[in-house]
């Protein structure tokens, strides 16, 4: 399976064009608090306004062990945005059976480690993706499937579809194809496992590090931002 092209995180990082802006944007109160300006005044009480902090790793030896355990027990939040979502179903059937890899679909982001974005991402969907991603507990990993998720695919000139998800959330592994075969997705998962074991899948911390940049990008396209700045 190694003969199918896989793009992993370091490649994409090199393509990031704009580095994060230094300093505080107007929606960020201070190092630990967010303004949550998108919310009406009476709703601000209902949402947590803490700014996420970078998670600390343990001692390297332990961390290696934990990374191994994480790679052996990936719980998937399948975000079926487009046609690529179809590809997850065969994965749990007897033919491909991801459960032998220790993976299982999980219906709630709280308990999932891996969000799988299955296709084109419209603005409306992007909002939900961001929310679900932020609700996951770290370390968390993103696998984006289909060319639509990589460069817009057939929606390259659509008025309502983003063309690159990595501007909005950090993606660990892309799987190309329109649509990719389940084997390809499996290969993607295997790649992700390798990355995790190597300690390279630190998308969560990347997101926190470049939090302002990601938020700017998200807010640029999501016009009705009626949610807190970070969905805890």
């Amino acid at each position, binding site marked *: 399976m190694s003969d199918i092209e896989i793009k992993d995180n370091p490649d994409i990082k090199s*393509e990031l064009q704009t580095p994060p802006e230094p300093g505080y944007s107007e929606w960020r109160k201070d190092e630990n608090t967010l303004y949550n300006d998108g919310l009406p005044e009476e709703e601000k009480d209902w949402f947590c306004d803490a700014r996420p902090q970078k998670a600390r790793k343990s001692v390297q030896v332990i961390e290696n062990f934990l990374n191994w355990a994480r790679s052996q027990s990936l719980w998937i939040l399948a975000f079926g945005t487009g046609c690529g979502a179809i590809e997850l179903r065969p994965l749990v059937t007897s033919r491909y059976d991801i459960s032998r890899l220790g993976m299982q679909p999980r219906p709630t982001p709280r308990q999932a480690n891996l969000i799988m974005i299955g296709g084109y991402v419209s603005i409306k969907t992007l909002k939900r993706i961001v929310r679900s991603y932020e609700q996951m507990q770290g370390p968390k990993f993103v696998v984006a499937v289909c060319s639509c998720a990589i460069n817009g695919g057939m929606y390259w*000139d659509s*008025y*309502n579809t983003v*063309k690159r998800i990595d501007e909005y959330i950090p993606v660990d592994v892309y799987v190309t194809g329109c649509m990719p075969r389940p084997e390809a997705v499996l290969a993607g998962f295997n790649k992700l496992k390798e990355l995790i074991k190597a300690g390279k899948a630190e998308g969560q911390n990347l997101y926190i590090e470049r939090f302002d940049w990601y938020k700017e990008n998200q807010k640029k396209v999501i*016009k*009705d931002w009626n949610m807190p700045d970070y969905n805890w």
Partner: protein
Amino acid sequence: METLYKELKQYFDVDEFSVQKASLAFLRVPKSQLVSLLTHMKDIRGYTHLVMVTCVDYLEQDSFLLTYLLHNYSTHCDLGIQVSISRQNPVMDGIHHLWEQGRVYQRELFEMFGIDFPGSPDVHEPMILEGWQGPPPMRRDFDTKAYSEATYSHRPRDHKEPEEYMKQQLYPED
């Protein structure tokens, strides 16, 4: 369908009748008579099901062509009633009082084409495009490509030609 057209002709100013197949026909009606014709079809002719409401933007003729597709359960016939309205002042009478679901189509038409239906419930609420701020996107004079390029960043193309690259990957010995 022919007979139906002839009978309708006695009461309404219908024209441009065209039969697509035995159970599907279209006809056109002036804007002012649309609602009464629909009421007539629903109450008397048995066309009780509103299948859909669509719109085509005839930019050249400066008009929107709305099509109300009705279905008759007893004869299993479909009749498309078309009405042409001006692009300059796209306002139309609502049919949500005849079919409850009509308001959904009307919301969609407002969002996508900017056709207003005064009195239709929630017609100005965003439906599919949350927080959309541009012009109605389905109008033909809206350039989606330009909009997309202006709004969303494009991933630079990988310089490897796919065909070559795959060949290298798969059959490196060739």
